[in-house]
C-alpha cells in the first residue's frame, strides 16, 4: 500500500466516523414543565424527568422512556385521523398496518392496539386484562390494561388510555417488562397520562 492510498483510507475512515455520530440527540422532558408531544396539540406535564426519544415511530407518535425503551416505554399517539395507522408502516403495500376508522367504537380501541402490536411489532400473544370506561383529556374515554408476549418470549405488561376527540384518536400507552420494571414506573406513567390536556 502506498502512502497516498493509506492517507486516502484514513480520510475515508474519518468521514465515516463523522457520519456515524448522532445527528439529533434525545431531549429531556423536565419535571413540572408542560410540553406538547407527537407533533400535535396534546400537552403533558411530567411528574418526573423523562427522556424524549428522537426516533420517529410514526407521523403522530412519540416515545418517552426513563431507563431505555426496552425497559419502559411511554408512547403517545396523538390526533390520529381516520385511515391512519398508529405506527409507521414498514411497507404500505405489502405489510399494511390496521387503520383507525371514523366509525370505530371506544370498545374496539384495544383491538386496534392489539392488531398493531401483532402486525407491526410481531407480538405473539396479547391478553386484554381489563377494559373499562375512564376519563381521558377530560372526555369519556377508555382505560385498558394488557399483557403482551414478544417474539423472543419476553412478557410485558401495558396500560393505556384513549379518547376520540373531534373524530381523531388520542391514545397513550405504557409498556414495560412484567418482571420488576412495570411496577417501578407505573405510577409515574399514570400521572403522566392523567396530566394530558388538549
Amino acid at each position, binding site marked *: 500500500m502506498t502512502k497516498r492510498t493509506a492517507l486516502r483510507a484514513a480520510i475515508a475512515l474519518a468521514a465515516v466516523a463523522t457520519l456515524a455520530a448522532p445527528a439529533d440527540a434525545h431531549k429531556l422532558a423536565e419535571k413540572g414543565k408542560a410540553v406538547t408531544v407527537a407533533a400535535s396539540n396534546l400537552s403533558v406535564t411530567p411528574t418526573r424527568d423523562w427522556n424524549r426519544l428522537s426516533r420517529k415511530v410514526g407521523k403522530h407518535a412519540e416515545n418517552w422512556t426513563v431507563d431505555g425503551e426496552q425497559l419502559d416505554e411511554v408512547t403517545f399517539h396523538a390526533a390520529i385521523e381516520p385511515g391512519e395507522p398508529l405506527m409507521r408502516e414498514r411497507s404500505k403495500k405489502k405489510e399494511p398496518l390496521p387503520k383507525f376508522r371514523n366509525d370505530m367504537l371506544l370498545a374496539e380501541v384495544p383491538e386496534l392496539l392489539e392488531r398493531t402490536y401483532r402486525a407491526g411489532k410481531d407480538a405473539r400473544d396479547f391478553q*386484554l386484562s381489563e377494559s373499562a370506561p375512564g376519563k381521558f383529556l377530560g372526555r369519556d374515554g377508555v382505560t385498558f390494561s394488557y399483557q403482551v408476549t414478544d417474539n423472543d418470549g419476553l412478557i410485558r405488561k401495558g396500560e393505556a388510555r384513549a379518547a376520540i376527540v373531534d373524530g381523531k384518536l388520542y391514545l397513550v400507552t405504557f409498556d414495560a417488562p412484567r418482571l420488576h420494571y412495570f411496577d417501578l414506573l407505573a405510577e409515574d406513567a399514570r400521572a403522566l397520562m392523567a396530566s394530558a390536556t388538549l
Partner: protein
Amino acid sequence: MRTLVVGMGLLLASPAAAQQSALLPPYQGAYQPHGVDEIGLWREYDEDERTLGASSLVVRDEPLSTYLRRVLCDTVGEDRCASVRIYIVRAPIFNASMAPNGTMRVFTGLFLRVRNEAELATILAHEFGHFERRHGLDKFRARRSASDAAAWMALLTSLGPTYQTMQSYQNFQLAVYGGLFRYGRDQEREADRLGIAYLNQSHLQPRSASAVWQHVMEEAEASARAKGLKKPNFRTIAFADSHPPDAERAAYLADLAAPDGPDREDGTERYRTALAPFLPQFLDDQIKLNDFGASDYLIQNLATAGWTATLWLKRGDLYRTRGNPRDLSAAADFYASAVKLDPTLAEAHRGLGLALMKTGRPSEAAASLQTYLSLRPDAVDAGMIKMLIPGDTTK
C-alpha cells in the same frame, strides 16, 4: 455393506427413481456426532434447545403434544421417532424445522394450513427427512466456508475502496450466497422424496403432500389480491423460502406417491378433534395479522370439511375489524351463523352486537350485547360493553 446401503438409499432418492413410487432406505439407528464440526454444531443446538425449553412461546399442552408425536411415529416408524423431541412454538407462520440433534420445532401457523392428518404427516416427514440425511451439517459446512471466503474478500476490498472493487465484491457475494441457496434446494428435493417414502409405508394417504403446496400457493395469491398487488411474493412464505419452486414440487410429489395411496384414509376427523381446543387461539393469532386475503382463504380452506361455530366467529371478527360498510353487514351474517350453531358462544354475541351497532341497528345490537353480558358477566370488557347499551341500569 454400509456404503452399499447408503448408495442404494441415494439411488432410490434420485430423480431416476421417479417412475416408481418412492421406497424407504433402512434406518441406521441412533446417531452420535463425529468430528469437530459436528460435535460443535450439536453443542450449539443443545444450548438452543435448553433456551427453547424455558421459552414462554412454547405451547405446553399434553394432549396436543401427544397427538403430534403419535402422528410423527405413525409416519416415520417407532424406531426413527424415538430420536425426536417436538416443541410447538407459538408463531402464526407456516413453518416447521428440525435441528441435527433431534429438536423438532412445529410452528402453530402450520396447524391452520393443513386440513387433515395426512397433510400434517407430510410436513413432519419432510422435516424428518432433513434430519435423517443430516442436511444441517452439510449446510453448516457450506455456510462456513462460504462466509470465510466472503470475509477474506471484504478484507481485501477494504484495502483499496474504489467503486470497481466494491462492485466486484458485491458480485462475489452474490455468487457465493446464490450457490448456497441452490445447494439448499437440492437438499429440499431429497427431503421431499424421503418424506413421501415415509408416507408410502404408513397408513396415511401420500398424495396429500401436493395438496398442501397447492394451498400454500393459493393462500399467497389470495393475500396479494386483497392487498392490490399484481403478483404474489412466494418468497415471503417462510417454509417456501429455500424450497423448490412450488409448481415443480407439487408435480414431483404427485409422481412419487404409492399407487394405492388414494384409497387410504387421511385422518380428517382425528385431526379436527385434536386441534379443536386450540383452533380459536391459533385463528386469532392469524386474523389479527392484518392480512385479510390470506386469513379469509385459510378460514374457508379449513371449512371445506364443514363450518363450525368457531370458524364463523373468526370470519366475523376478520370482516368486522377490516370494517368497510359491506364488511360489517357480512360480519353480522357470519356471527349470526355462529350463534345459530352454538347459542352459548359469548364472543359471537359480542361481535354481532358491535357489527349491528355500526350498521345502524342499535336496538338489535343492544339485545346481542345484553346476551353477551349475561353469558359472560365477568368479561374483561364488560364495563365498555355496558356503555353501549342504552338505558342499562347496571352501569
